[in-house]
């Protein structure tokens, strides 16, 4: 062909990935293309739209956005439309012309031919596409992260309507208004506008110390035209303003100049107090179970706060576990003291253990109690001391908002109060003579962590139990089958699994996905002979032992984080609405990006389950 489309050819030749194409291919490429134009501000692609082209920016620029957040900005030579041409799915992102933009479009067939003949082209676009997805995930977190001081706006700090007087009120009456209202400062208003502020300090310095007549008007001693702050300023900015100017009171104004209220240094200090560390310390100081229960009631609000601050699900799991550990520990201390008063000292060494998600440090909102007692060999499991202790602690936990375990996996159940020797024998039975049902109910005991008492008892026990399990093909195969049975939903677009009846109709049980990862990781860790408890730690251990490919381990960890993250946000929202937290996500409440990632997470879980079954029972 002749040079008639030289402009388009030369342009493509100057940009990746077309720059690697042979001349003959480049010569022919423009004929496969069309040109389009988009005025600044027009939407070129709508998220979810079917598109059948790769689009290359010839001139101008476009913004690629996900739910309004810019994921990428593409200028001349850059491309979009990869969802269609690479993944063959409707476009993931909205694309808007940021400037007047000329586009070169390449139809799907031409793209397919090109990728078939030149794999580097596919690679380039797949990589670009992957980067965009990663950026989109990062945006999910971004903007919500940070400490309370960074996150909270002044508007949320203002606790009451301002106490105000007019400028001609006498100093004496103003002082009385302050005393009656119990405030240390007063806003002086004239015709709805803020004209001044009078504080305790002003009264001291400008009235008492200066010998000013209290019958004079407030206007004479107030601070005129005080420093103010906008209602949407961040708490951090206010803090800097106050320390920088040595102010203790700052009037807060709306955009229209009206007064919203007053923020004080005390408000800022209170904000900083909403830190889990303070609560742990407070819990440890409580003199009685009622005090512990009272403070334990703050836990959900604190977790919700962490969710709002966009901590990772992994971090929140550890913080929640630390808080509930503090609740449990203090309840145990108090209960032990109480039982000792009636029945004397404990009849032998013991360790109170937590099981399941508490042991894995993966607690969220809305969990229940799972615990047991491990007694030193020689202690009498039938001694009433143990039952008394278990009853008191379980009652306390229940009052603190942790429901009793439906399966009675609690220290109140005599079955789960055993000496180390008996525990060892029980685990051995699970490893050597497995009855499927018993084993499946027992899985939770492989997640065991000492909370209180003699932790060495539990360490010794676990040191025996883990290798025992690792050697038992039968046990591993039962656990693997169990993990593979926990089916996560298939997806949202086709054949998705929803609860089909009851209160959770048309919702999605995210716990099934989470549980599946937990179970898969447990099997892998046992195969690897690892005593690790946390799911992520287990996957890492299994990877290190070569039991799981690195990619699978990483994918499963990511999937767990995503599902747990979405569950936490769902539960925090339920708490906000005054509902009891559950695991049932309503798909329509999820954003498009969340849905897509959740679908991807489920796919990862299913693949891992498949892999587990294919491997069969083999000692790692």
């Amino acid at each position, binding site marked *: 062909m002749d040079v008639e*489309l030289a*402009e388009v050819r030369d342009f493509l030749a100057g940009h990746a990935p077309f720059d690697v194409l042979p001349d003959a291919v480049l010569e022919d490429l423009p004929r496969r293309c069309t*040109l389009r134009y988009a005025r600044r501000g027009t939407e070129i692609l709508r998220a979810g739209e079917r598109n059948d082209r790769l689009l290359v920016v010839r001139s101008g620029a476009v913004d690629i956005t996900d739910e309004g957040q810019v994921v990428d900005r593409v200028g001349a030579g850059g491309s979009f439309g990869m969802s269609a041409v690479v993944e063959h799915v409707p476009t993931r992102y909205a694309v808007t012309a940021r400037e*007047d933009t000329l586009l070169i479009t390449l139809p799907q067939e031409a793209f397919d031919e090109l990728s078939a003949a030149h794999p580097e082209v596919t690679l380039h676009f797949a990589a670009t596409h992957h980067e965009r997805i990663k950026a989109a995930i990062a945006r999910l977190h971004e903007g919500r992260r940070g400490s309370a001081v960074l996150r909270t706006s002044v508007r949320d700090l203002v606790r009451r309507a301002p106490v105000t007087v007019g400028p001609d009120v006498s100093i004496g009456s103003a002082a009385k208004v302050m005393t009656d209202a119990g405030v240390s400062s007063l806003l002086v208003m004239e015709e709805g506008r803020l004209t001044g502020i009078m504080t305790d300090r002003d009264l001291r310095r400008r009235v008492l110390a200066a010998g000013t007549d209290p019958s004079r008007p407030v206007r004479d001693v107030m601070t005129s035209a005080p420093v103010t702050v906008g209602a949407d300023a961040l708490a951090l900015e206010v803090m800097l303003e106050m320390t920088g100017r040595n102010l203790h009171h700052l009037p807060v104004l709306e955009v229209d100049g009206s007064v919203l209220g007053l923020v004080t240094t005390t408000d800022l200090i209170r904000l900083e107090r909403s830190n889990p560390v303070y609560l742990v310390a407070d819990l440890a100081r409580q003199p009685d179970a009622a005090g512990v229960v009272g403070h334990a009631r703050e836990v959900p609000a604190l977790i919700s706060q962490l969710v709002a601050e966009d901590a990772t699900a992994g971090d929140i799991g550890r913080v929640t576990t630390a808080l509930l550990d503090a609740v449990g520990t203090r309840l145990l201390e108090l209960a032990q003291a109480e039982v000792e008063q009636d029945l004397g000292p404990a009849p032998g060494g013991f360790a109170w253990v937590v099981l399941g998600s508490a042991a894995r440090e993966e607690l969220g909102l809305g969990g229940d109690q799972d615990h047991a007692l491990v007694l030193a060999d020689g202690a009498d499991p039938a001694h009433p001391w143990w039952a008394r202790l278990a009853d008191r602690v379980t009652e306390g936990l229940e009052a603190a908002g942790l429901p009793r375990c439906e399966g009675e996996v609690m220290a109140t159940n005599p079955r789960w109060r055993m000496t180390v020797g008996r525990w060892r024998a029980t685990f051995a039975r699970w490893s050597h003579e497995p009855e499927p049902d018993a084993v499946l109910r027992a899985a939770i005991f492989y997640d065991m962590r000492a909370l209180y008492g003699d932790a060495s008892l539990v360490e010794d026990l676990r040191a025996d139990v883990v290798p025992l399990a690792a050697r038992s093909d039968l046990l591993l195969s039962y656990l693997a089958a169990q993990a593979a049975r926990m089916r996560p939903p298939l997806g949202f677009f086709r054949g998705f699994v929803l609860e089909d009846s009851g209160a959770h109709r048309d919702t999605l049980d995210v716990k099934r996905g989470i549980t599946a990862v937990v179970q898969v990781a447990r099997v892998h860790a046992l195969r690897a002979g690892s005593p690790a408890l946390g799911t992520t730690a287990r996957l890492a251990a299994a990877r290190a032992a070569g039991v799981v490919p690195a990619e699978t381990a990483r994918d499963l960890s990511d999937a767990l984080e995503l599902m747990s993250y979405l569950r936490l946000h769902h539960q925090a929202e339920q708490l906000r609405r005054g509902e009891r937290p559950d695991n049932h996500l309503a798909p329509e409440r999820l954003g498009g990006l969340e849905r897509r990632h959740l679908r991807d997470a489920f796919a990862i879980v299913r693949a891992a389950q498949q892999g587990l079954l294919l491997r069969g029972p083999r000692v790692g």
Partner: protein
Amino acid sequence: MPRLPWRRDPTPPPGPLAELADVPPPSRSTLLSEVEILALDVETTGLRPRRDELLSFGLVPVLAGEVLLGGTRHLAVRPRGDVGGSAVVHGLTDDVLTDAPPLAQVLPEVLRAFVGPGYRRVLLAHFAQVETSFLASSCLEVYGASVPFQVVDTLELERRLMRAQHHELPQGTLRLDACRRRHGLPRYAAHRATTDAVACAELFLAQCAELESRRGRPLVLDDVAERGLA
């Protein structure tokens, strides 16, 4: 607009011109997105149709807001005389052109390109008078008759778009590259028939986008077409 002499001859001889005459121009009320448009750029030895010669035609189709590069045509014409100074402008040398077929062989291809599905495709050009007058005089020369086109002239469109904002237009504001710059279109090394046709087609897309956002409704042919046929 003055009546031009060839309009008086309504009966073209059988052949490509007659085929073109058989299909009517599209209705002016047709949605622009449904009208097949052909951007045309001619290269000539000068600007006087009776004296100067056609050297090449560049053609590129536009449909539904897209320039269809796959339909791009470049048709060189063997001139009777030599190319002279214009070769500097076009990069078309005597050598290239002496290999090309004569106008009488090229013209049918051009005319057939304008025979659309039941109607005469719309002719799109920047300062279309050059294209229409050279086409008409070529037709007269070859067939002794001519057929008028429905024309969209990006220069006139730009003048209308600009007039809404400016009272007087300084010289040069309506040149193709100046118009393109105004719409954020890239700079091209101009003066090759196909490049200019593509450049004009792109400008047309940009103008339509602006006009459509001003009107706030989908455009019809009447919004952009010149009055009458040419």
